[in-house]
Every structure is written in structure tokens, then in C-alpha cells.
């Protein structure tokens, strides 16, 4: 009997020692409360910071329409924020090289990058550059030669992007969707009119 009691006593002492050890390893209730409190504070700070960042990013949204041109697939889109307002077939540079007898070369590629509409033109006039004569094996006239002024080939409207690049109409409608231009972006009449009316001087144009 006595022996049994000693065994029980030993077992209980051991069990209590293990329990006490567990209790020592676990954080106290106060520590846990403190931990929860500091986590709550951290979450609140993050939430506030994120709201600030969202507001800042939101303030950079100008809500303006912008033009995007995919020169690889010859597609133009009018966009506003995440919305696509209109998709259109267009044409971009032919990626061909022309060289004259003096070794001057022209590579007909539409540039990539961010542009702005610098000017809007109605009934634009094409001033034939040297390469257009070289391309057709014609003698290049003087810069002020009236022969260089060509009407009714760029459509009713043009959006000027700078460095000689424009978004304009074309008489080669059957070639829309292919790379055939000399670097400008050509569009069909209805799409061009929509792009012209939707944009203003300063509208951003992204070519990629």
C-alpha cells in the first residue's frame, strides 16, 4: 500500500513538474495581450500607409483619354483609365530601308515611346520629303518646290506627334493593318475622325 502511494506521489510530482515547465515556455497572458496589441498597432499603421499610397496614386490619375498604338499588330486604341473606348486597325512603319545615290539612308520605322499630341490639323497637307522621290527613282526637287505640296492624301485630319510623325488618314485603305507607312500611323476615315474628336492638344500617345 505504502509502495503504491509512493508511486502515485512520484508520478504526480513528475506530472506537475512537466506542467510547470510547459507553463514556463508559454508566454504569459500579459505577454500575449501585449503581442495582440502590438499586432493591432502594426496593422493599423499599414492600413493608414496603404490608404495614403492609394490616395497618392489616385491623384495621379488625370481621367484623360489617351491613345495607344500597338505597332507590332497595327492596332490603335482610345483608352480612359482601364477602359477601352475604341479599337481600330491602323498601319505603321514598313521597316524598310531606302538609300539614295549619295549614301543617305532612311529607315521607315514608327518610333516607340511616350508622345503628346502637339497639334491637330484639318485637311492636312503632305510636304513630300526627299525620300519619297528617292523611293520612286525621281530627281529630288528644291526644298521650296511647289511640287512637294500634296493635298488629299493624308485624310481629313491629322494629329501631330513631332519629328515629322503624325497620325493621319490614307488613300491606301486596303493596306490598313499592315506595315506600309514611312513611320507615321495611318487610319481609316471613321476611326481617324473618332481619334481626332476624342483628343486635344496635349493628349498622351503611347507607341509600343
Amino acid at each position: 500500500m505504502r509502495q503504491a502511494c509512493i508511486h502515485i506521489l512520484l508520478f504526480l510530482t513528475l506530472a506537475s513538474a512537466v506542467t510547470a515547465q510547459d507553463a514556463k515556455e508559454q508566454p504569459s497572458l500579459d505577454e500575449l495581450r501585449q503581442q495582440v496589441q502590438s499586432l493591432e498597432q502594426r496593422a493599423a499603421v499599414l492600413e493608414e500607409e496603404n490608404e495614403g499610397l492609394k490616395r497618392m496614386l489616385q491623384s495621379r490619375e488625370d481621367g484623360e483619354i489617351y491613345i495607344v498604338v500597338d505597332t507590332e499588330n497595327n492596332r490603335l486604341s482610345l483608352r480612359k483609365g482601364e477602359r477601352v473606348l475604341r479599337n481600330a486597325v491602323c498601319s505603321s512603319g514598313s521597316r524598310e530601308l531606302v538609300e539614295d545615290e549619295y549614301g543617305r539612308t532612311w529607315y521607315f520605322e514608327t518610333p516607340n515611346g511616350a508622345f503628346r499630341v502637339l497639334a491637330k490639323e484639318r485637311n492636312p497637307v503632305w510636304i513630300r520629303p526627299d525620300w519619297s522621290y528617292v523611293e520612286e527613282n525621281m530627281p529630288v526637287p528644291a526644298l521650296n518646290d511647289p511640287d512637294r505640296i500634296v493635298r488629299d492624301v493624308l485624310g481629313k485630319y491629322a494629329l501631330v506627334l513631332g519629328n515629322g510623325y503624325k497620325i493621319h488618314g490614307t488613300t491606301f485603305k486596303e493596306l490598313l493593318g499592315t506595315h506600309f507607312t514611312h513611320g507615321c500611323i495611318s487610319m481609316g476615315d471613321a476611326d481617324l475622325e473618332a481619334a481626332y474628336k476624342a483628343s486635344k492638344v496635349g493628349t498622351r500617345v503611347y507607341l509600343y
Partner: protein
Amino acid sequence: MERTHGRIITAFCCVLALFLLGAGGDRKEPDERALLRKQSEKLEARIDRLTAEQDFLLFQKAMYDADSRYLVLHPASGKGQLKYKNRVLRTFTFSSSSRRPAKPLGAGALSLADKVDGRGSRHALIYGDILILQTRKSRVPIKTAHMTRFYLAGKDLNAVFYAVEEGSPAYIVQ
């Protein structure tokens, strides 16, 4: 006499047992402890979510100030965007490889490490050593077998391929 002695010892053992078992602490404590643990687990999960959100917001802020086109990829929905600053230039869809990759794809930014020029819808874009954007026809190096693959339509990949440069980032949103 001996029997009485035994009874006393037994009674003492019982009292001691009750005392030792009770020494574990207040009975209310385990309940509160469990509650606090649950609360802190929830808060930790919320902090993880907010940290991930902040990482993406900071990325967007950085890209607004940068002059580089970049991709935002959402594997769960299979949707992607080509962006420049805060403008969307293109939206596209993609499907993931069914094979489980050796390295799981987590949220965050990756850098375009290599452009494999395959021509005719066979290009591939390799991000870090973890992700490839390609078409079903793309020819990719054998050393990339362990990577996660996102398959794009040919015209989407062609457009994206020429729009991004080595070093351009892609952000994986989970």
C-alpha cells in the same frame, strides 16, 4: 494501526494530487489564451495581406516615376496587363503550365532576364530564373524546364515582346 496509517497516506496523496493539478493555473486562463492566440493569428494574416498590398502599391509608385514598360500578371485569373507609368497599354490573358514547377511563384516583382527571339510567335520572355512567358510554339532553352510557364496568344506575346526590355519588371499579384 497500519491500516489507519495507510488511509492517512492515501488521503494525503489525494489532497496532494488535487493541489498539484490545480497548480496549473486559473481555469479561465486557457480560454483567454486560446482567444488571444486566435486573435493574433488573424492579425498576422491581416498584416501579411496589408504588407503584400503595400508592396504592390510601392511598386506602382516606383513605376510611375520610372520610364519603363512593365507587366502586371494575375495568375489566379489568368489576366495580364502591359503598362507604362499608370497607363494600361494592353490587356491579355494567359494560361499556366499544368506541371507543378520546382520553385513556386510568389507575389512580387521579377526582372526580365532574357528575351528569346524566336520569330513568328516563337518568342519567349524569361523572368528571373522562375518564370517564362511564351506561346505553345515557343522554343525555350532546356535549362528552363523547372520554371513556371505562362502561355500567351501569339499576337499578345509579339506585342509584349517588343514592348519590354531586359531588366523590365513584371509584378505577380496573388
